[in-house]
């Protein structure tokens, strides 16, 4: 009896192993996972140097893992299981009662390198500089972390970064504005980033510093364009039990309009772009509804008739913020360092803008190579 059962075990287990192997070999391999919103690993290429230091096997493991049969379903199951048997932490993301929070803030490299590069940039140009360093949701909702986890890491990171900026740069304390309002829907539940409302709350302060009075909330009509947004934290965890997010588009009907909006890629090719285009809700990352995939350089001209020009240097946090600025400036140039591969001076003449606004998440501050091209 036991002997026969053991033979059945052998056949069953070997069968499962071989079956998954066959599924893997003959399954079609996607280059891009819509569910995880990322490029999957390429077929590893053999080279002696890679084999020598073990890189080849690592690549093979990555490739096999990324294209493992039923990966999406397995990851979703893994999220469920790991919250069951241990703390509510899934792949480095904390599942708080109603939202996902990234736990990697403490691992960020917090050298002053980024601040130094930005200081140099501001020294070299006459334009008046303003800096908004935006916390991620784990900074604003840090109180929801387990008690043993450090709570105000991001606050400290922002403060230390602001302290290393030179005195000429005006800093805007987005952290405390957002922290005070954290009862409201200012951050997505499934994403690191702020909602359009969160961006609006900070806009009110920023625009005053820039010398304008803010457009009151009542002037805007808010359209809920999507009720099923799952953001970057969902991509990591595949945790489905959090309520999906709503994406809002703010329109100022009576306000100024956009005359033209042109994006440029790194080789200078122009392309027309529509801000807040609902058609982009079909893309894997719905947040792209605001400005589309990150372009290195963007030029927006509006019907505002004051000849004021603003240069914005931003990361993804800026995407839902920029539409608010279009009510105040005749021309806005938008630079995304993460997509920029050519020196900044070759795409835009910084000195022709009287003001420069940096609007970036605190998580971008740890990668100083982001700012290398600003000074070239």
């Amino acid at each position: 009896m036991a002997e026969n059962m053991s033979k059945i075990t052998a056949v069953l287990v070997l069968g499962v192993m071989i079956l998954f192997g066959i599924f893997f070999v003959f399954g079609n391999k996607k280059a891009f996972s819509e569910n995880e919103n990322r490029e999957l690993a390429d077929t590893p290429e053999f080279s002696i140097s890679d084999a020598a230091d073990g890189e080849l096997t690592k690549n093979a493991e990555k490739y096999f893992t990324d294209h493992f049969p039923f990966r999406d379903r397995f990851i979703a199951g893994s999220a469920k299981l790991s919250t069951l048997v241990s703390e509510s932490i899934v792949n480095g993301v904390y599942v708080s009662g109603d939202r996902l929070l990234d736990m990697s803030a403490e691992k960020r490299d917090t050298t002053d390198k980024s601040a130094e590069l930005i200081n140099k940039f501001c020294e070299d140009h006459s334009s008046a500089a303003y800096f908004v360093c935006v916390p991620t949701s784990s900074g604003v909702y840090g109180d929801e972390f387990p008690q043993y986890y450090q709570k105000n890491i991001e606050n400290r990171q922002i403060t230390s970064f602001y302290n290393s900026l030179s005195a000429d740069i005006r800093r805007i304390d987005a952290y405390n504005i957002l922290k005070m309002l954290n009862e409201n829907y200012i951050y997505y539940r499934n994403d690191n980033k702020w909602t359009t409302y969160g961006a609006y709350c900070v806009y009110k302060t920023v625009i005053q510093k820039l010398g304008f009075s803010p457009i009151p909330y009542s002037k805007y009509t808010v359209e809920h364009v999507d009720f099923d947004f799952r953001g970057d934290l969902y991509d990591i965890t595949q945790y489905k039990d959090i309520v999906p997010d709503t994406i809002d588009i703010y329109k100022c009907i009576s306000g100024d309009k956009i005359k033209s909006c042109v994006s440029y890629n790194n080789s200078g090719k122009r392309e027309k772009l529509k801000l807040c285009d609902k058609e982009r809700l079909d893309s894997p990352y719905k947040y792209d509804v605001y400005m589309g995939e990150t372009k290195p350089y963007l030029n927006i001209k509006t019907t505002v008739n004051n000849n004021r020009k603003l240069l914005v240097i931003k990361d993804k946090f800026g995407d839902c913020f920029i539409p608010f600025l279009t009510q105040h400036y005749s021309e806005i140039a938008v630079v995304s360092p993460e997509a920029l591969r050519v020196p900044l001076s070759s795409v835009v003449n910084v000195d022709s803008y009287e003001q420069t606004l940096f609007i970036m998440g605190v998580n971008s501050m740890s990668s100083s190579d982001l700012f290398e091209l600003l000074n070239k």
Partner: protein
Amino acid sequence: MLYSSLLFIYIFLPVSILLYYVTPTKHREKTLLILSIIFCGMINLWFLGFILVYVAVNYIALRTIDKFSERKEIASIPFAAAVCFDLTAILIFRTKYFVSLLSSIGVPNGFFPLGISFFTLSAIGTLIDVYTGKMKSDKNVLRFALYIIFFPRLIMGPVMRYGSFNKAVRERKDGLYEMGVGFTIFVKGLAKKIIAADNLYMLYTAVGRVDYGELSALTAWIGITAYILCLYFTLSGFSDMGVGISYCFGVRLPKSFSYPMSSNKIRYFAARWHIDVIHWFRKYVTRPVSRNIKNMYARKGVFIAVWGVFGFWYTFSMNGFIWGILIGTAITIESRLDKRRIMVISGVIYTFLIAAVCTVFLAEESFSGAFRYLLAMLGGNRIFADTISLYLLKSYIVILLIGLYTSTSLFRNMLMRSGKNKLSTAFSILSPIAVTGILIVCTVMISYSGSSGMILMKL
């Protein structure tokens, strides 16, 4: 590539088994050697090169020792040289002092020959056996190479004498039945590692984040319980996986752990913990050293010191040494104090408490850290329990209970006692489904990262 990675479980392992069984019986051993070489090469080519040189040096030394077995003074030269070579290798890779030397000869950063602590013991043991004339060296270089690099034995042993390994390979009995047993043991080890150890490690690191000056006694105890269970499940999990894989090829290796957590005396705990390694130290260090010592106290001293060396072997740091000394001392004191029988339950609790207190030194990197942690366990921070301990208990209660239950022999005993009744039949009918099910659960749990890389200590 560890045994607990998707690539290994779903590609390397089934392909190896198929290749092994399609090879004619005569050549199956060679297939195992080739598979092991591929396994080493997949870790990286540096490792393959290193281990082949290692095999060659030890093989040549063994043959030379044998050749001059009549003339000890000449045989002692290759013996000493090979032992020095093996010890130098383990010192270079397990301590931090040679990093710049290694990188200057082009060794990639972070290169570590996994399993070096185990195959060093195997190699030195064989050298001693041949030198002292207990056995003849084997002419068969392929068998000797397999002894060192047999891939199921590479990562976490078990350490065994050349003679026993030789016998296990020579008299192997392979077939579908063995494969079934092997898979059952392999999946058991995989579950120990992925389900138990990885989650317990999360708990242990969570406790480690609290400042030791504010650690409540309960949290500290939860943390050390998690650590000791995690250590047990990691070591025995890898060892089980190895034993299971090798069983699939019909090679029966001994197991390294025999439910140490359910011992009712610290002496039994020590006898069931990492049996193969402790046996090695007793055979090749304790016995030869204390053979000529008549004084009882000095013999006890040697016994404790060798435990210290065993602890040092774990960590290559002072704290591991202290752990060993403490366990050795506890065994010595216990055997002097108490000859009475202890009740099972109180005995198990007593053993666990002693083991937990000692293991603080294994868990902590520095002496002062271990001391502060111990103080917290004894309530030195004047907090018995706080919200952190309650939160951790609530979050990890499932895994802690599963861990405590399965680390003792309770489950096995239940199966044994059930004898020939219906329960036992039910279990054997369910076992194929249970094994496959657990394999799938483990696959799910590593599906995101593709492998479970936490190894707690680099052995």
